[in-house]
């Protein structure tokens, strides 16, 4: 993958990358950090991407790792645990943001990848490195919990 193609792919994925990063980190400063880290890591590792059509899934995996790295660094200095209202305030649907934010990561991320970003179960499972059957279970539980959170609003 050459530089121009790489830049175009990142641009095309930028919205998705932001939402995935936000769903884990929930603040712009950390998202900036993780997004930059992911872009640089993706470039370094581009030789490992055998088929460019899988770029989106592949970069999502790298981004999730970058987000967790950012989160770990942050927790050493700042106990910035998730603050649902704060994260939700700027979303078009704050109640939905609040409900989604209340889910644990392992249930939230499958929902975000499949229902916000339109990934297939296979793509989302690859991005999360979990079996498709596990992903299905988490989607089911995630939807169930999300419904309960929304109904409790």
């Amino acid at each position, binding site marked *: 993958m050459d530089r121009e193609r790489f830049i175009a792919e990142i641009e095309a994925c930028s919205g998705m990358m932001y939402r995935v990063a936000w769903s884990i980190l929930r603040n*712009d400063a950390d998202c900036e950090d993780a997004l930059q880290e992911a*872009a640089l890591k993706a470039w370094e590792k581009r030789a490992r991407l055998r088929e460019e059509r899988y770029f989106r899934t592949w970069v999502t995996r790298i981004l999730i790792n970058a987000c967790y790295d950012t989160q770990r660094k942050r927790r050493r200095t700042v*106990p910035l645990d998730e603050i649902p209202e704060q994260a939700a305030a700027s979303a*078009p649907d704050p109640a*939905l*943001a609040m409900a989604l934010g209340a889910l644990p990561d392992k249930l939230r991320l499958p929902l975000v990848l499949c229902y916000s970003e339109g990934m297939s179960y296979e793509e989302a499972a690859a991005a999360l490195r979990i079996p498709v059957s596990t992903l299905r279970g988490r989607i089911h539980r995630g939807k169930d919990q999300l*419904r309960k959170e*929304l109904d*409790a609003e």
Partner: protein
Amino acid sequence: MKTNMDDLNLQNAFPAMSENCHDALMRAARSVKEEKPMKRNLYRTVLVTALILAATMAVAAAAGSVFGWNDFFSTHHSDTAIPQGAQEILSATEERTFNLGPIACKLYQLYADHYTALASAQITSSDDVLICMDSCQLDRIGANGDNWIRQAERLGVSPDLTWVEAAKQLGRPLYSVRCILNAQAPYDGGGEMEDALYDADGNLSYFSLQVLGGDTSIQTLPVQMFLRAAEIDLATGEEKNVLTDRPAFDLAVAPMIDSHTYELKEDYTVGGLKLTSVRGELTPGGLYLITEFAAQDGMTYADFCESQLIPVWYDAEGKPYGWGINDSYISTVNEADWPKVTMLGMISVDKIPDTLVMALEDDYIPGKGTAPRITLTR
């Protein structure tokens, strides 16, 4: 009415991508051919002591008393004293109680000035419910230090058990609870802290702090408490019934009492940073010290982001001041203003000192450093 999941557009749960984030991402992507790709664009670093993970010191508290902020600081920061003015505000807090199923959250010590908001709440249950701090149900009870080990002793279980294991052993239901203060934009200053301690009666006291933006014109602060109680499934350790509430109210903001900009009578440059301004802003909670520096030639933005330099404050006799009640150290760098760097700290005093001594040190443990010092007089 039940929510129809197929009607939900989950993208509405996310804010639009900010220009900062988009620009940062694309700058990184476009930098890949450069010899040294640009790696960071942090514009703000907030350091709040990681109290949740900190091993705790012994607490001396009278049996039967509800834990307040004095107990919190004596547990975690014995060098932090709450000035009298803030003590009075905390004591005068109008108590209010919110119920979440079997859990009662009683707010009892709140405080706000233009940089800091504090809230504490006592968490109790009328039923035979075990209560642990949010998301701690699978942690060992003793993992958070002496205060929690004593709670295990009160319960008559080993501190090496998890909360779930203890609840099973005792045959009691378990709830994890969270109770935090939240001031939303534009008041949010970018940092939070939360922690919990058990008082001598075994009740949980929840403490939360939010860093505010420093606007001295605010007289009342609109805040929300985020209350969450989750019943834990003892078979799986997972939450099975989550109750939340978000009561909103206004919190009176303590006014700034006095301010002073210290005159710099000598040059002070350490670690590539030249001191350009020191301003004190006194509130009932203590003295905020806003220091400005100019990064000198040779220091890059990345160098600064990697550094851990912060001002440490001493009195005229060279004795370090304790941390202020904001429990934070905030360093702000707006990339557009580079090489200007602003740092905010706080000390526990009730008047602006005539003499202050500052050292820019490479750690945030007061008294540790041997860095050069500068004396500032009023």
